[in-house]
């Protein structure tokens, strides 16, 4: 684009970003200023870069630039065998590893045509809900920090650490658990885990009350979030937003209810929604979701079925360690599985699960070999970030922080 003197008034700096140098004057008499925000900025929750056109302090246009955390996870998956891929799924949305594992495991199981035993399903639900709690806790702690509620981080990370301890107890890892695998779970829950979980579920409601006491009626928190970043239900639907972004706009859509997986249909819980359509509404949705997660955990714990936690198929899962010493067949299965892996029948399948951020899905294509032909992760952050401009338009720069915060994008998930 050029003005009359032939001088360029826009400058394309790559990644689809154009800087406006027209010298246009805004409503406040000042020049419209293009400002680069991020990528290395604490309030972008990772490395998100925004190109913002400012009129005074008002946002006139906002352009997210992503890709700074692209690690080629989908490419790596194609080079790994089916059972090895689980480890990689942990690492794209690093705040909800078991939920990513679950999407991948369910997709592989659908193509293999197997179903895991009831105890494995219940353990999967337990891990998913613990992860949802941990993810919301990180969100609340960091968003509180950004909007001036410094102590939130201390309170939230206190409980998150308990969840990390639970992860460690059941899988040996605190963060990237790789606990849920095609064919079942890594190992059965130990008695100590169930004891710890019971204690956690008993204390968590009073902890959520504490968070609410700090934020829900806090005048600063309310003035920073109420009426900020409005997203109407229609806009949210059109923009493809999912998760608390959609439910915060009053749409009762939750994949756990709509398209139930891993036995969620048998649990009694409600879809958390809020009609406020703003940042405060999204906060209320997450608080309600945490209470519902505790409710699901209590039910799962009370009626945890007995039985195996893995499918009985030696072609997919290795035999128990003690069998290797006595059975030649077990040794052969073990050898085949760890040298060649198993092959999945040709076909493609898409499985979606509800993560803390929205719909995280896994689309896998098998060509019948022992490695995937294509693994695609549908990430909620990637889609939700596209609604950022709609929400932040005509808001102040400071409000933009609240809006990025409540969009709760994990950039690792967004860039994969």
């Amino acid at each position: 684009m050029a003005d009359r003197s032939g001088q360029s008034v826009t400058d394309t700096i790559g990644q689809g970003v154009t800087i406006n140098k027209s010298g246009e004057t805004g409503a406040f008499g000042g020049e419209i200023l293009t400002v680069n925000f991020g990528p290395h900025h604490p309030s972008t929750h990772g490395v998100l870069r925004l190109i913002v056109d400012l009129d005074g302090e008002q946002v006139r246009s906002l352009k997210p630039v992503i890709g700074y955390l692209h690690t080629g996870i989908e490419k790596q998956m194609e080079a790994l065998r089916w059972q090895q891929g689980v480890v990689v799924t942990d690492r794209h949305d690093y705040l909800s590893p078991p939920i990513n594992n679950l999407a991948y495991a369910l997709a592989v199981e659908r193509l293999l045509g197997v179903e895991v035993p009831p105890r494995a399903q219940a353990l999967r639900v337990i891990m998913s809900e613990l992860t949802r709690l941990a993810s919301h806790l990180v969100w609340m702690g960091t968003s509180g920090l950004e909007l001036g509620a410094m102590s939130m981080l201390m309170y939230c990370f206190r409980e998150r650490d308990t969840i990390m301890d639970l992860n460690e107890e059941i899988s040996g890892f605190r963060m990237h658990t790789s606990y849920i695998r095609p064919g079942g779970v890594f190992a059965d829950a130990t008695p100590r885990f169930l004891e710890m979980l019971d204690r956690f579920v008993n204390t968590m409601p009073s902890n959520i009350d504490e968070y609410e006491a700090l934020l829900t009626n806090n005048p600063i928190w309310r003035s920073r979030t109420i009426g900020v970043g409005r997203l109407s239900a229609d806009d949210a639907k059109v923009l493809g937003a999912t998760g608390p972004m959609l439910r915060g706009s009053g749409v009762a859509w939750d994949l756990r209810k709509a398209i139930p997986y891993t036995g969620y249909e048998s649990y009694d819980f409600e879809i958390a929604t809020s009609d406020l359509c703003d940042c405060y509404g999204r906060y209320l949705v997450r608080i309600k979701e945490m209470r519902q997660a505790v409710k699901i955990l209590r039910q799962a714990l009370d009626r945890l079925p007995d039985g195996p936690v893995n499918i009985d198929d030696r072609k997919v899962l290795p035999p128990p360690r003690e069998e290797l010493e006595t059975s030649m067949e077990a040794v052969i299965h073990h050898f085949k599985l760890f040298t060649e892996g198993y092959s999945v029948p040709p076909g493609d399948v898409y499985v979606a699960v509800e993560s803390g951020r929205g719909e995280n899905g896994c689309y896998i294509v098998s060509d019948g070999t022992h490695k995937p032909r294509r693994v695609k992760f549908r990430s909620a952050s990637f889609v939700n970030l596209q609604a950022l401009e709609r929400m932040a338009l005509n808001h102040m720069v400071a409000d933009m922080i609240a809006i990025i915060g409540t969009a709760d994008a994990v950039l690792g998930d967004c860039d994969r």
Partner: protein
Amino acid sequence: MIPETLIVERGVSGGDQWVTVGPADVHDALAALRDEGYRLLVFLTCVDHLVDSSRKWPARYEVVYQLRNMDTLEQLRVRAFVDGDPPRIDSVSDLFPPANWDERETYDLFGVVFNGHPELTRILMPDDWVGHPLRRDYPVGGEVVEFSEEHEAWQTAPDKA
């Protein structure tokens, strides 16, 4: 439903319904489906069928659109096969706003050009990147590693590897 004349093939895979349409009919087919209630484009991606002997593929690149009707909970996968260098297909970002970034990603990683996309640029890889990493003939580990002591050894251009 999509006019039957547009459908080349239909089937079920792993419990998911899918239809194949001709590459030139994608925009029409998706517009018909959207008007019928499939308002959410869950994702859009591409699969590279280079040296894939699991069946006979009409073309190397398969562009996949996963659609969902949020009222009836029906899901449908629309597939279109494209060939060529670069492969070209019509953009659907005017029908489904979320397709904007998905198409940029598919262009970035597979080199599929979406006709009519408002700004088809790279989104995940740097702008000066050579090649499209998710193509099956793009090697893993062949990228240039800056500041490495074995810089020369790592420097294998994707077209030579």
